[in-house]
């Protein structure tokens, strides 16, 4: 005999509905994309839910970053300064806040460039990391053109009036002209115009003195002073040269030649000259001396 109970080929209501659900495209989509996305989101939320885990993950990330940065490929071991004289280079090296070896990721090249630029003797600066772990600093130096004896002592000036460095004694840079007085550093070009114009008696010039931050005095040896006007001092120098050529004015016993009044130059004699002149006049007029 056959078994009494035969298999029912019909799907149950639940099986039928499940089968229909499986055939639904939206359900498929949910299963293939929605479910994994939900799982990942849930995992992420669970992971970042507590402070401890967040910190641990952050530290882990930082650690990996550090390991990457400290690879030998990225380490800077050498600092090369190009285009600077030794004292300036030394100064740049001292001023750079870099302790080698260092990872190139830790270098803020913009900031380093600003630091180098802030060194007085440097006109322009470029900083970059070269292959082979070299931090290259390419600078162009400011050229010292004059000395300045100012309120802070003896210093070296560049063409634009920047104080490049300090000196203890004038004799260290005897080749540079000396400027004196407050505000002298702001009129360096004008000083050089004057000096260029005064080239015929350059040997006698001791220095230029800024007076009242508006005009120059040329200080010569033998205690002579040429007072130039604030306006067009070069013209005054040329007049002085003309007077000197004609009358040997500078060789004479005068202490001050005053060109401040442009209509008329005034000459002050030395005390001895005044006395001698007065004696001569007395002799001529027959009077007694004192």
């Amino acid at each position, binding site marked *: *005999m*056959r078994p009494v109970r035969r298999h029912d080929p019909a799907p149950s209501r639940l099986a*039928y509905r499940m089968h*229909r659900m499986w055939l639904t495209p939206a359900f498929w989509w949910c299963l293939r994309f929605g479910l994994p996305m939900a799982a990942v989101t849930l995992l992420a939320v669970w992971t970042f839910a507590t402070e401890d885990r967040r910190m641990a993950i952050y530290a882990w990330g930082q650690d990996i970053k550090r390991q990457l940065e400290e690879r030998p490929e990225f380490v800077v071991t050498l600092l090369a300064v190009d285009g600077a004289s030794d004292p300036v280079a030394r100064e740049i090296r001292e001023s750079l806040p870099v302790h080698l070896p260092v990872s190139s990721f830790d270098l803020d090249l913009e900031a380093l460039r600003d630091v180098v630029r802030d060194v007085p003797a440097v006109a322009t600066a470029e900083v970059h990391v070269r292959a082979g772990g070299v931090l290259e600093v390419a600078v162009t130096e400011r050229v010292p053109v004059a000395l300045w004896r100012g309120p802070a002592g003896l210093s070296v000036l560049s063409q634009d009036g920047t104080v490049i460095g300090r000196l203890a004694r004038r004799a260290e840079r005897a080749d540079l002209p000396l400027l004196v007085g407050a505000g002298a550093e702001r009129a360096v070009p004008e000083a050089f115009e004057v000096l260029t114009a005064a080239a015929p008696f350059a040997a006698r010039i001791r220095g230029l003195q800024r007076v009242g931050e508006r005009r120059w005095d040329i200080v010569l040896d033998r205690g002579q002073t040429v007072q130039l006007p604030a306006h067009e001092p070069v013209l005054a120098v040329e007049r002085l040269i003309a007077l000197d050529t004609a009358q040997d004015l500078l060789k004479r016993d005068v202490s001050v030649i005053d060109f401040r009044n442009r209509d008329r130059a005034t000459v002050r004699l030395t005390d001895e000259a005044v006395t001698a002149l007065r004696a001569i006049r007395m002799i001529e007029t027959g009077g007694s001396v004192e």
Partner: protein
Amino acid sequence: MMMTDLYETQRAMRGMRQAAIQRGVVAILDVGTSKIACLILKFDGEEIDRSEGIGTLRGQSSFRVIGAATTRSRGVELGESCALAETERAIRTAVQAAQKMANVRVDHCIACIAGGQPRSYGLAGAAEIEGDQVTEQDIARVLSASDVPDYGTDREILHAQPVNFAVDHRSGLIDPRGQIGNKLACDLHMLTVDRIVLQNLIYCIKRCDLELAGLASSAYVAGVASLVEDEQELGAACIDMGGGATGISIFIKKHMIYADSVRLGGDHITQDIAKGLQVPITAAERMKTFHGGVVATGMDDRDLIEIGGDTGDWEKDRRTVTRSELIGIMRPRVEEILEDVRASLDAAGFEHLPSQQIVLTGGASQIPGLDTLAPRILGQQVRIGRPLRIQGLPQAATGAAFASAVGLALFAAHPQDEWWDFDISGDRYPARSFRRAVKWLKDNW
């Protein structure tokens, strides 16, 4: 008569059908007595090129069968569901198998009903034409003016197809719109079935999470599938010999004008064999399909058939029967069915049709010898018909047993206009509706 209710439900089903075709997938469900067939149609809207001698295809080129499944029917007798839970399970089996084959989920289904004692009514209506030409509104009015008979409260209208329009004295119009005349008349063919049977079927389908997108009479759709175009045009009857019921539908001018069913079918033949030879139903079914026939010859007397069996009684299980004896059991029942069909055709006045072609289809039409027996009872013009070919239908489902299923597929693709496909008549609107007000404004300005 509460016509509006039916109108609304049928319209809703038409809307559902449109939605299903928009979505591109619709299921065909033929709930029969012996088998339940489910086809899944895919509408991809690609009409094949009909330039080279291919006639109108009645829309069947617009779809393709992507899933087909058949299962043994359970809980259905005489084409009517009598054990709802069993029927529901069987429908579920078929639908699931078809879905599995198609690999697509279907939500809409179109079903046909074989039982329910269909009754045909011929309705006539007439109305004056407003204005010169016939408009949609005139058609609506003439349809609503039809004299609907009292068909009983326990019955439901399944089809209500306008089969003929007449303007004044010109009859035989298919589409009267735009015709000029005074009076429009129309003939309507109405088919009712038992309400309980219909509700049971709808209940089973709803229990399978399917939306019903159409209902049709099995006899009608079998005719649509099995009758060729000429037969439908000139007049023919389709006899759908199913398992539990035999459907009859008469077509002329491409319209069904009559439908009936004889509550006898192939299952009754099987039962006769089982009773006559004392064998189980399954063994009887097997003998019927392998050795059955209706015309005995001398050869059949010598053709011994092993009856078989597994009762354990050796003597009983070893019996043999001649094929003549088997034919002797089957033939009276087949004759009875055909005589009932003849009676039904006579009642319908089939002999008055110009052409009296009869097409036998359905599973039971495959009995060998039927083509010699049937003409003796039904008349000379009888042929055994197979349903139309549709794209993608598996070979196993192309036989005559699938005439209803194929017809339903054609019905789904290209349904005939029914009453509810026309505009609703103005005077059928609810008394206080907005559209009634609009109509009043239109009429008075």
